[in-house]
């Protein structure tokens, strides 16, 4: 009996502690039994673990494993380790992910190793402590806190690390060792990494606001509100209709430059109320095979800036089949009948002063009109002096440029110069061949008295509204 008791006592003190133990578990800690698929809560500690058992931790959790021979593995949160071998002479742990601190006791030839996806770390002194972190793709960072550790990558390259050294290992292999950061340095590095990430978020937030700004800018461009004129200067354009009464419409092309505003407007009074949708009304202005339901009875087409204005007025409008009248020169090709509005009274005014005009009664062709001389054609009021004779010449003075000049030379020595230009997309005058191209914006200039009214007209507004040619 004494012998048996002595044997028992001897066995307790001589045999190593064989069973690994999960000594502490804080937060979410789960255990998976060897060969099993299910993770279960660690439950009460201490808890025995065997070879093949796995332990994993959740966010901010931690676990302490005590292995044979006194080796301790402490995992941080979001870590996953499993026990591969826990024998009397050999302890091996598989670290799959996360951070862990290992205190290895390798006295008496005992082998203590930790394997990661890219390397194996072995204790090379009786007491060795190190911290390792396994990140995405298995890349591993090893920092030796005490003693000596050996690291060997998957290609067989190995090196020894001493206290204070750090090395990174990835699929390429083991890199050059560096001095491990002190705890203060490590904390600073973590902090810097976090704040760099925050800076990235802050800068990335701009992308949404920039996209909204880009769309606003693009919209203005697509609507033709931002153009470049013949001189390469920025000109803003707004084109809209004003509808002051049911039978009246005013089509406005407003320009804005550094020098101020200028505009073209076509203000027309119709014989009947206009519909909400003006598309058929404007389509009918250029003439058609049948008379339009909407007849312009009077209009005023104006070019103006903040100083000068140039106005063409018409009154007494009525629709005429130009192809059916007695004047073959006003025929419109492409149709048997061609109805357009003809005006009985018409006048051209520069800063309110009548320059020329004509009158007639139920005119069927402008060739029947009588030029005004001593009366205002619109109001009939007597003029202070007879209107001077006018000579009108049209030319293309520059062979290379899309520039048409219409010069009105008056007997009193005054002139009115009207220029039509086709513009390049990015500014400047387009080549001569592009005159009339739908791909070009137009600029209209009216010069008299030494000053010029300049209006960039991106649409067909002038053509659509031109009533007297």
């Amino acid at each position, binding site marked *: 009996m004494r012998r048996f008791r002595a044997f028992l006592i001897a066995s307790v003190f001589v045999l190593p502690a064989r069973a690994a133990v999960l000594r502490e578990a804080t937060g979410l800690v789960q255990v998976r039994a060897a060969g099993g698929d299910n993770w279960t809560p660690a439950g009460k500690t201490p808890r025995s673990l065997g070879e093949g058992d796995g332990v994993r931790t959740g*966010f901010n959790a931690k676990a302490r494993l005590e292995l044979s021979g006194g080796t301790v593995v402490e995992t941080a949160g979001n870590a996953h380790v499993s026990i591969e071998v826990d024998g009397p002479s050999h302890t091996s742990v598989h670290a799959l992910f996360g951070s862990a601190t290992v205190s290895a006791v390798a006295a008496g030839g005992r082998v203590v190793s930790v394997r990661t996806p890219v390397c194996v770390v072995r204790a090379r002194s009786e007491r060795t402590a190190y911290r390792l972190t396994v990140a995405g793709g298995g890349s591993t960072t090893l920092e030796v806190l005490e003693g000596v550790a050996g690291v060997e990558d998957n290609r067989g390259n190995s090196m020894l690390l001493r206290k204070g050294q750090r090395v990174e290992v990835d699929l390429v292999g083991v890199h050059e060792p560096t001095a491990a950061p002190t705890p203060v340095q490590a904390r600073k590095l973590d902090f810097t990494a976090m704040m760099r990430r925050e800076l990235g978020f802050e800068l990335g937030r701009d992308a949404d606001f920039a996209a909204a700004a880009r769309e606003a800018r693009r919209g203005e461009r697509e609507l033709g509100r931002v153009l470049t004129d013949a001189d390469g200067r920025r000109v803003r354009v707004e084109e*809209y209709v004003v509808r002051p009464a049911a039978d009246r419409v005013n089509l406005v092309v407003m320009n804005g430059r550094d020098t101020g505003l200028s*505009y073209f407007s076509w203000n027309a009074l119709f014989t009947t109320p206009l519909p909400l949708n003006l598309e058929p009304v404007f389509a009918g202005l250029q003439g058609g095979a049948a008379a339009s339901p909407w007849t312009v009875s009077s209009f005023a087409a104006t070019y103006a800036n903040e100083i000068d204005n140039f106005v063409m007025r018409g009154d007494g409008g009525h629709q005429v089949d130009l192809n059916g009248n007695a004047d073959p020169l006003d025929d419109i090709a492409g149709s048997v009948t061609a109805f357009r509005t003809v005006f009985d009274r018409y006048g051209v005014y520069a800063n309110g002063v009548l320059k020329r005009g004509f009158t007639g009664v139920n005119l069927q062709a402008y060739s029947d009109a009588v030029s005004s001389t001593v009366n205002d054609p619109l109001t009939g009021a007597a003029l202070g002096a007879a209107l001077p004779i006018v000579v009108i010449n049209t030319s293309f003075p520059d062979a290379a440029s899309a520039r048409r000049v219409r010069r009105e030379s008056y007997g009193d020595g005054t002139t009115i110069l009207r220029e039509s230009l086709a513009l390049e997309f990015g500014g400047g005058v387009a080549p001569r061949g592009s005159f009339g191209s739908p791909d070009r914006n137009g600029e209209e200039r009216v010069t008299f008295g030494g000053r010029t009214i300049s209006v960039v007209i991106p649409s067909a507004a002038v053509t659509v509204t031109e009533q007297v040619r």
Partner: protein
Amino acid sequence: MTPILGVQMLGGAHFFRGERSNLSGNADAVFATAIRANDNWSLLPSARSAYEGTRRAYDVLGTATPAQERMEHKVSFRAVRADPISRWRFKPGLSYKLSFLNETKDEAWGKGLFDERLWTIGAETEYLTREPHSVRASLDWFDASYPNYTSLESRAATQFGGASVARELVGDRVLDRSGLRLGLAFDLPLGERVRLEAGLSSVWSRYGKQKVVNEAGQFDADERADFLTSAVAAARMPHEWNADLKALASLSFGLAAQSSNQNGYDASRGKFLPRFYDYKEVSVTPAVRLLVGAARAPVSVDLSLGWRRRSYGKRPAQNGTGAYDGGPLATTEVQFTGTVTYPIVKRFSLVFTLERTSATSNQRFERFYRYAYEATSALAGFRWDW
């Protein structure tokens, strides 16, 4: 207190439909100071300045202004509450940005039509799922103003005596807007090798001075409001051929949609264009980053090929003369980007970038905006990070 710096300087040229801009440069500098106030709170004041003399392929290129200059200056302040024992982070912040844009030779800095002032105030909440992965939600209020953009019509209303050349209800600062931005994003690992990133953001903009245009071409009392929503999802996967050649491949899918109550009106044709700004956009971008050479300082080659199609559901396409005779306007862009980053010394790298965009559309009327073009930007310079 930890300084964070980054500087990139590039020089090069932009080509649009064969027309080349002058050689110019781009510069971008970021400076921030990370301050740990206590265990829970950190502060991040930052400043960024950028100059762009050479246009990039992702800009609004249809304006066809190769000689464009842009400058941005932004200051921001962000606080980060990160309790070490909590998965939650809370980050309030505010920022102010000045943007200058010169598009023509007669514009001086500060006088650009689209110069912008942008205020934002908001906060982000982040929930750490499995570090470094997280879910983030953010909400920002913003106010964007364009000090040099006043509607001509509002000026005409007073300068030409009123009613005859201006509509009732016309506003002046019609591009100024304010609103809210909502952002949601997350990233997570998919299996052993794939990482998934996704984000959704929506910007609601209210244009306080811009009234809605009605079918008669006149203004209604309602103000314009836009919703710009975008969503993107990307899968990233690393691959290693050998020790000196690794790759990170990614595939991104994007969806975007704008919904606006504003209409358009083609005045010279009397054509009402309902929901003028509405569109939907879909994009696919495969990309790859190749890392060549020693792992500590590899040469990085980034290649991406993006395809993007935008459809304006209610806006009809026009033919070459401007007549509305097509179906809904649609544009397609194919964009290639290649960047080589060559490390010289620690934190300092040479950078070479080539960008090319090819755009097509069923819109044939291009008086105001180019819908079909080929554009290229070629840039070279350096990057320095601290």
